[in-house]
């Protein structure tokens, strides 16, 4: 399901002395089936844009088209339920939203709220728990007795239980250790394929953008300043620095090597890609004669 912004402005507390302009003239499309990364430095408007994706916020001017629905400044707050079902948002620290006595009740809460019977909702909950990689034995446990990482998975299962078409993730790995981060990112990649989801990822981790996304939206001061594939976005390190953004570690390191005198046709995005490039220069006879996009992400 695609989401399209047309000339969207958004102001917090408009018409008051506290009015703060958060989004200006946003024109952007999140294509169906894409894995779109939304990047920008702290306070650039990412979280505000994200809340437009299921009409938690409505534009102050302009339109947001979510699937078939067009959201305008005057759209009524009634009748937005189906949107909330189709676009699931996993907020920062989603585990803080858990509230039920048991894991199964917490995951089933959403579907039941949308009129699914308790029995069916509990069945869905059990399936979702498996999807996020947790054991069925946790179903009757209190979510508050679980570890932080498990709690986060339960919260994500609660969003997946709505069977959304678009899954929006706001810094979903913040606070997890590197192992947990890797497992969580691989889980989203798997869910995307299994559930045929459109994924929107808000992140500061440029390595995750390089490893997982196929489309990138860059924000600065409430505006969309660039869109493209990760390779296009990371091809211009100087531009990124100007917008207070980093590079994937590999790209940054390759840039340092370039300044020392190494030559690369294009900047690599992953360490395996860089390793291939280095090998071909150090021992050309052993390396493949060329390497294009397709081999770049081979593990």
């Amino acid at each position: 399901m695609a989401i399209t912004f047309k000339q969207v402005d958004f102001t917090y507390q408009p018409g008051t002395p506290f009015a703060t302009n958060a989004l200006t003239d946003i024109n952007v499309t999140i294509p169906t089936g894409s894995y779109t990364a939304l990047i920008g430095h702290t306070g650039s408007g990412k979280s505000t844009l994200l809340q437009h994706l299921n009409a938690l916020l409505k534009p102050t001017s302009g339109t947001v088209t979510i699937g078939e629905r067009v959201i305008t400044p005057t759209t009524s707050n009634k009748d937005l339920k189906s949107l909330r079902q189709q676009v699931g948002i996993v907020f920062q620290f989603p585990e803080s939203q858990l509230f039920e006595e048991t894991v199964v009740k917490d995951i089933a809460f959403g579907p039941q709220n949308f009129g699914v019977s308790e029995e069916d909702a509990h069945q869905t909950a059990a399936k979702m728990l498996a999807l996020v990689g947790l054991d069925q034995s946790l179903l009757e446990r209190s979510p508050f007795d679980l570890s932080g990482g498990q709690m986060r998975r339960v919260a994500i299962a609660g969003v997946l239980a709505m069977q959304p078409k678009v899954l929006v993730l706001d810094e979903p790995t913040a606070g997890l250790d590197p192992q947990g981060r890797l497992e969580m990112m691989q889980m989203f990649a798997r869910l995307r394929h299994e559930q045929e989801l459109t994924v929107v990822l808000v992140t500061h981790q440029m390595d995750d953008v390089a490893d997982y996304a196929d489309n990138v939206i860059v924000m600065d001061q409430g505006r969309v300043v660039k869109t493209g594939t990760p390779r296009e976005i990371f091809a211009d390190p100087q531009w990124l620095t100007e917008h207070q953004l980093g590079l994937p570690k590999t790209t940054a390191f390759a840039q340092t090597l370039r300044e020392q005198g190494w030559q690369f046709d294009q900047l690599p995005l992953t360490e395996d890609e860089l390793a291939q490039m280095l090998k071909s220069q150090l021992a050309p006879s052993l390396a493949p004669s060329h390497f294009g996009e397709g081999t770049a992400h081979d593990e």
Partner: protein
Amino acid sequence: MSSIIDVEHLNYRYPQQAADELTLRDISFTVAPGEWVAIVGHNGSGKSTLAKNLNGLLAPAAGTITVDGQVLSEETVWDIRTKIGMVFQNPDNQFVGATVADDVAFSLENQGIPRDEMLKRVAAALKQVDMQDFATREPARLSGGQKQRVALAGMIAAQPQILILDEATSMLDPRGRQEVLATIRQMKAASALTVLSITHDIDEAASANRVLVINDGELKEEGTPAEIFQHGEELIKMGLDMPYAERLKAALKRQGMQVPATYLTEKGMADWLWQLRSNK
């Protein structure tokens, strides 16, 4: 040299744990004044529990904690807390003020700092974390990274002797993280501040003088960052990211290249590659 923090045979058990279970088991270490110590470990290893024991938010089952010469007890806990500033991972849990400036001023008001001095310190602290334009905003309406900056500003203004950072840079973008680390280095240079940082971030750990590795509630290892980083791929199990040079080394190995066994910094890696190229 006398230590500013001295932890001896610390055991900690949460109330719901059985008598034979411990979240922290026989932890002993000391921290010298002005030292920067990073505490690393995977989620659930007991790092945050340790931090909360150090300023008396949690009370140990056994062992003693001495801070700046005072043994931590019910009598000394309030004294000790004035010496320790803590920044948590999710600052929502520590905001009290209605505006950013009020929040930064909170601990100064508690300490009875004169108003003129307080206003100066608040303004300077906000400037140092680049949040001066947000002084009259509501903390709740800030982004995750902005909140972490405000929480840090509160500590800069309070000027504690010891700063404990519990994953305090996890919500910042890479540049914000660099800026915050630079701010902490400045604070240390200006005032012999002692820093304990609980972190998964390799750059933050690399900034420390010493790294403590906690695993399943026990102190497994301590050493300089370079000593700890030698563990290469094992670091992931310790709850740390691999340093980039180690990741590239592993990728080069996958390409069938021979790589040095010792830990290389990024600069060391670049030099080694250049050497290879020159010798080709």
